[in-house]
C-alpha cells in the first residue's frame, strides 16, 4: 500500500487513514452512528410519551389543547427553513464558495435563535398560566390535573431536550463559521460542515415528530 503513503501528502489526511475518501466516509458513518444513538435517546422519551398517551388519552388531549398551535407551527416553519439553509450551506461548501458558506451558516444560526425566541415566549406563557409541573401547577377542567401535569412533564422534557440540541447545533455552527473565516475549508475537505449539517437535519426531524405529537393530536 505504498500508494496510500503518496496520498498522505494531503494536509487533511490523518496518519491512520489510507486516503481522503476512506477518512471522509468513516467520518460520515461515525456521524450517522452517533445520530442512531440520538434517535434511541429521544426514542426512550417518545416511548414514554406513547405509553402515557395510550393510558390517558383524555388528559393528554386536554393538555395538548393548552399549547399554542400558531407558535408551534411557526417554529416548525422556522426549523424547516433552517434545514433548507443548512443544506445550502453544505452545498456551498461542496463548491468551495466560502462567502456563501458563511452567509448560509449565519442564516441557519439566526433561524436557530429565532426558534429559541419563539420557544421562550411559549414557555413564558406556560409559566404565566401555571402550566409548569410542580407545586404551582394549576388546571381547571374535566380531566384529572395530575394526569394533565404528566402531559406537561413530557412536554417540557421533550421540548427541553430538543432545545438543548438546538443550542448545541448553534454552538457547532459558530465553530464552523470561525473555521470558515480562517479559510480552513476547501472543495477537498469540508467534512465538519457536512457532519454538523447531518446533526442539524436530525434536530429538525425530531421537531417534525414533536410538533404533531404534542400540538396537533386531539385538536379536533
Amino acid at each position: 500500500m505504498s500508494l496510500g503513503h503518496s496520498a498522505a501528502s494531503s494536509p487533511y489526511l490523518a496518519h491512520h487513514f489510507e486516503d481522503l475518501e476512506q477518512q471522509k466516509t468513516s467520518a460520515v458513518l461515525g456521524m450517522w452512528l452517533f445520530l442512531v444513538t440520538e434517535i434511541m435517546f429521544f426514542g426512550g422519551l417518545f416511548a414514554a410519551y406513547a405509553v402515557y398517551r395510550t393510558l390517558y388519552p383524555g388528559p393528554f388531549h386536554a393538555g395538548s389543547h393548552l399549547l399554542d398551535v400558531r407558535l408551534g407551527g411557526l417554529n416548525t416553519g422556522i426549523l424547516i427553513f433552517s434545514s433548507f439553509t443548512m443544506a445550502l450551506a453544505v452545498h456551498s461548501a461542496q463548491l468551495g464558495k466560502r462567502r456563501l458558506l458563511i452567509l448560509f451558516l449565519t442564516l441557519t444560526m439566526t433561524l436557530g435563535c429565532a426558534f429559541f425566541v419563539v420557544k421562550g415566549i411559549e414557555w413564558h406563557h406556560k409559566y404565566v398560566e401555571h402550566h409548569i409541573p410542580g407545586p404551582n401547577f394549576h388546571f381547571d377542567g374535566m380531566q384529572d390535573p395530575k394526569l394533565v401535569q404528566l402531559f406537561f412533564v413530557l412536554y417540557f422534557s421533550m421540548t427541553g431536550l430538543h432545545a438543548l440540541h438546538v443550542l448545541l447545533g448553534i454552538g457547532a455552527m459558530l465553530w464552523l463559521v470561525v473555521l470558515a473565516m480562517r479559510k480552513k475549508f476547501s472543495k477537498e475537505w469540508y467534512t465538519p460542515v457536512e457532519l454538523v449539517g447531518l446533526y442539524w437535519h436530525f434536530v429538525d426531524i425530531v421537531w417534525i415528530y414533536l410538533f404533531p405529537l404534542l400540538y396537533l393530536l386531539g385538536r379536533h
Partner: protein
Amino acid sequence: MNHVMPDHVVPLRVYLLVFIALIILTAITVQVAYIDLGLLNTPIAIIIASIKASLVVLYFMHVRYSEKLILLVVFVSIFTLILLFGFALSDYLTRYWIMLPIR
C-alpha cells in the same frame, strides 16, 4: 459498495422542491388535525411526519446519494425503535386481556 459518491452535488432545484414539499406537508398536517378521523388521527399525523422525515433524510441528508450502508443504518435504527415501542406497548395494550384471580 466501493463506488461511493461522497462529493455528489445535489442540484439546488431539488433542495428547493423538498423545502416547498415540507412546508406544504406541514400545512396539510395542521389542517387534517382539525378534522376528526376517529382511530386514524394518530396514524395520519405520524405518516405525514414520517414522509417529511424521509424527505429530509433522503435529500437534505444525502442518503439517496450515499453508500447503501447509510441506508442500512437508518433502517436499523427504525427497526430498533419499533422494537422499543412495540414490546413496551404490547404490555400496556394487553394488561387486562387475561384476568387472573390475583388481580
